[in-house]
Each structure stands twice: as C-alpha cells, then as structure tokens.
C-alpha cells in the first residue's frame, strides 16, 4: 500500500507534480498520462532522486521520503528506467546478482534466487552471457529480473515495453502480470501502450500536467471524459 498525499515537485517554473493525492493498494496498478505529465518525476520522487517541495509518501506504513536513496533498494524498492539501464559490461547473472547483494536477503540463497529471477522473466539463455550482446527485448527482461530479485516490496516499471515490437510487448506483459503473485510486491506500471496497461492493471491512475485527473478500475478510467480529452489534447489517441 502506497499513500501519496499533497505531493508537489517544482523545477524552476515547471510544476511536474501538483498536489498529487493517490493511493496504490495492491497487485499491479497502472499510471498513465500524456508525455510530460509527471510520471517519471513521480518515480524519481519515490527513488529519492527528486526532492518534493511538499507532500508525503507512506509505503507500507513507513515514511519513504525520509530514507536515503540508496537505502530504499534495501528496504525493497525496485525500479526500471525509461531509458534502458541493464549494465552492458556485466553478465546477465552479475546484473541480477548485484541487486541481490544489496538487498536484505543473505548470500546463502543468492545463486538460486538469481537464477530463479532470470527464469521467471522467461530468459532462456546462458546466464554468463554479457548483457551488451543481447537484443533490446532481452535486455529489458534483464531489467525486470533485476527488479524482482531479493524480495521486493514495491516494483516501479517505467515504460518497460517502450520501443519493443508487439510480440515482445506481449511477452513482457505476461511477465508483468505475474510479478505481484510471484514476489508479493506492489507493482506500478507506467506505459503508453493502453493494451498492455489494461491487460496488466486492475486499477489505473491518470496524470495530466502534474495533476491526478482520474483513478479507479482501468476500464472505467479509460472511458472517462477527462482522460480522453487529456489524450486528445496531445497527438496520441487512445
């Protein structure tokens, strides 16, 4: 359970988050909105890269904003980035093991946990392969494996399927749908692919110009007048 109250972020004259109030209960929740709506900024607040000017974030009854950014991973926060961040110089195994060794879980089960995470995302390859040699879809899956290893509590996925062909987006969707059950983590999915969001998320929140304009069951939200208008205001159409 993540409860966000009165969250505002300002960069000079821009207000990418404006008095945002929302809660994400459990399972996989969607967070959508046109480009520049503030979705990534919201994730950056949760990660600790951006300091809000006002507001609180409570995650499982803990004040998330009071924690040093690198400690949040140990607490159980995981995320992927809009631009791909799997470490090219390292093997698939080391990429995932690295997250595990900075988590709360001990070293004893590391090997097994890492291989589990790799097979959970459906990567059927030699774990010693260097990530730099993989294709885009596989690298994205490595990032997801990094996000689910070491008992996460919250998994943030920032456009995990951006730029992937339909077939690989489908594959990604299947993995995302299983994250809450497999790990017990609350998952928040940001994506522009409405098909992916509807198939993964029971509930969805919508941001527009930093303001929360709708939230609730995904199907209802996508029919909401204001949401359709927000999207029609930009070039992309639902």
């Amino acid at each position, binding site marked *: 359970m993540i409860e966000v109250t009165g969250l505002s972020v300002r960069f000079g004259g821009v207000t990418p988050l404006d008095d945002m109030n929302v809660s994400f209960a459990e399972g996989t929740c969607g967070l959508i909105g046109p480009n520049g709506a503030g979705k990534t900024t919201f994730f950056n607040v949760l*990660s*600790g*890269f951006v300091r809000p000017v006002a507001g609180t974030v409570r995650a499982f009854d803990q004040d998330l904003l009071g924690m040093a*950014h*690198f*400690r*949040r*991973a*140990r607490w159980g*926060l*995981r*995320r992927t*980035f809009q631009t791909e*961040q799997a*470490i*090219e*110089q*390292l*093997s698939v*195994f*080391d990429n995932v*093991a*690295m*997250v595990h*060794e*900075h*988590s709360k879980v001990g070293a004893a089960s590391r090997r097994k946990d890492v291989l589990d995470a790799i097979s959970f995302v459906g990567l059927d*390859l*030699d*774990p*010693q*392969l*260097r990530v*730099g*040699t993989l294709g885009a879809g596989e690298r994205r899956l490595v990032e997801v494996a*990094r996000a689910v290893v070491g008992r996460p509590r919250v998994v943030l996925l920032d456009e995990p399927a951006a730029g992937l062909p339909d077939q690989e987006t489908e594959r990604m969707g299947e993995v995302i749908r299983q994250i809450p059950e497999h790990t017990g983590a609350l998952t928040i999915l940001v994506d522009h692919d409405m098909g992916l969001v509807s198939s993964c998320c029971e509930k969805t929140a919508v941001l527009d110009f930093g303001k929360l304009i709708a939230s609730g069951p995904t199907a209802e939200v996508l029919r909401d007048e204001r949401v359709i208008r927000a999207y029609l205001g930009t070039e992309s159409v639902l």
Partner: protein
Amino acid sequence: MSAAGVETADTTTQPPSSPGGFDTRTLVRPAVIAALLLFVVLALPSILSTYYVDAMIQVAIWSIVALGLGLLVGRVGLVSLGQAAVLALGAWVAARILFATSLPYPLVLLAAGLITMVLGTLVGLPALRLSGLYLALITLMLAGAITVVLATTNFPNGGHGFLGYNGSAVHIPQIRRPSIANTDTAFLRYSVIVAALMFLLVLAHVRTRPGRAWAAIRQSESAALAAGINTTLYKLWAFALASFVTGVAGGLLAGSSRYLYSYDFTTQESITLLAVVLMGGIFSLWGAIIAGLLLQLLPQLLNSWGVSPDWLTILFGIGVLQVLLTAPAGLVDQVPKDLARLGRLLRGLARRVAPAGGRSP
C-alpha cells in the same frame, strides 16, 4: 569491445558454458599466466643486462601505477590526473619509514600503501561532486600542489625531524632495500612479485561485489543508486584501492632509485601516464602492463637505438588519438584482433597460392 582482459571470458566468441562448469579456457588461462610470471621472476632477470634490469624494475613499478589509474578510469569512469603525485607521496612516506625504522620491507610497503591510501582518497574527494573534465582538472591541480610541496620539503635523506631531510648532509645514506633483494636482479624479482600481488588484489575486487558496483556506477549513477549501491562509498573505495597500490609502488620506487631527491615528479608525468593507460587499454588488467612497458621500456629501447625519446611524446599523442577514435579498448584489445585479421589474410593468400585440390586448411 570486450569488458575484460585478465578476466576476459569473452562471451561473444566463447561457446556458452554451464555456469560453474569447467571449460578448458578457465584452466589454460591461469596456467599461462603462472608460466609467464615464473619466467619473468626466475629467468628474465638473469638474462637481461643491467641497463634493462633497471628498466624492467621501473616497468613493474609503473605497471602498478597504471593498474590503479586504469581501475579509476576504466572501471569506475573517474579520470584522475593526479596519480604520479600519489606515487610521489607513496615514495616519500616509504623513504621516511625506511630511514626512521628498521621494519621489514613488506611491512614498510604495507604502511606506505595504507598511508598513501588515506592521502590519495583525499585527492579523490572531489570525485564525489565532480566528474569528467572538471574532476580531471581538479586532480591535476591537487597533483600540482603536491609536487610543489614535495619540492620544498624534499625527499627524506636520512636527516632528522618530521621531514627527515638534512640539507647540509655531506654523506647521504642510501634508501635501504629488502635484505633478500639488495642486488638489482633480486630487486627486479621482488618488484615483479609485489606487482603480481597488487594485480591479484585488484582482480579480487574487480571480480566481486565492488567490481559489479563500479560497473554499475560507470554506466549510470542513478541506476546504481536505484540498485541500492552506496555510490559515495564505492567511489571512495576505488580511490582508496588505487591509492593503496600506487603507494606500494612508491615504496618500490624508493628502494629502486635509492636516492629519491634526484627523482622528478612532474605533472607532465601524470598526463603521460593517462595517455599510456588509455593506449594500453583501460578495460583490461593486461593494459596496465602494456602501459608500464610503453612508459618505461620503450624510452630505454629508443635510447639504445639512438632515437631521441622526445619522439615518444608525439607517438603517445597519436596513440591516444587512435584509441579515442577507433579502438576505445586500447592495444590489449586491438592487437589480437589485428593479428587475427593478419592471420586470416595470410591463410587466404596461402590457399590461393596452393594448387587446386590441395588440402584445405
């Protein structure tokens, strides 16, 4: 481009191996390295002339320095232009301890390494806030400051007081060497073994948790933070490790030259060092050895052929350009590729020359 070098499990060309399973390469590689090391320690010093024994001692020392800088630049992405000054610090500290105490040499090296580690980490502090060009400039300026301070304090020469320098000394005592390594050949053996230990130390870091953390930081600091890596700690750790090995190298330098006052640590040297480290290859520990050879053996070779070492400045300049433009992994990566290409070319030629129906290769 391969990430690697000593630990190149060049996964692009290697057939997939089951994790933890043995393939022959995992055994062949250490065996080749051990044989090479034995040759350099046992045979090489006795076949070289005094001139080249001296040169090779310097190669061993500067390979360690290059190892430290390669770690910073190649693994973590921190460009430091202060490493020659850190070496000078290590040499100063070692000389001071050698004159003041009768501690066994390995302990002196350890102490010089540890004290230099503390001082060198201070040089690295700006890295917590700066990167790229700004970091390079700051470390260059700090190095300049260290050089100026050392020029006024001088290197210890057996005098008293904290600085251990006696300006009016008539008879200047030598800096002592390990009792088992008093001759130049023995000191070369000693230096190579110490260098090998430093390479092992760095390898042990690069292959494990800190190495993975550094790779993450090099690629993206925010992604590293999101993975739970305390980037401040690991950056300082990199500077500490690089300074430690450089301090140990300083200890060897003190023993090798015996009179440090004649040794000039210029900031120019730090810049040339970065150039050869880039040329040798920053993603591989072998690159550090190549850098040591370029920096200390090549000038002596040119000298004995009667070529002015001034040409080296130009050569290194061109070398760095070539690395930056076409071969970012340096000579250690480029030369085997070029040799393979040459091999294919020669085989192709041989096939064409061979009569039709001849045995195909």
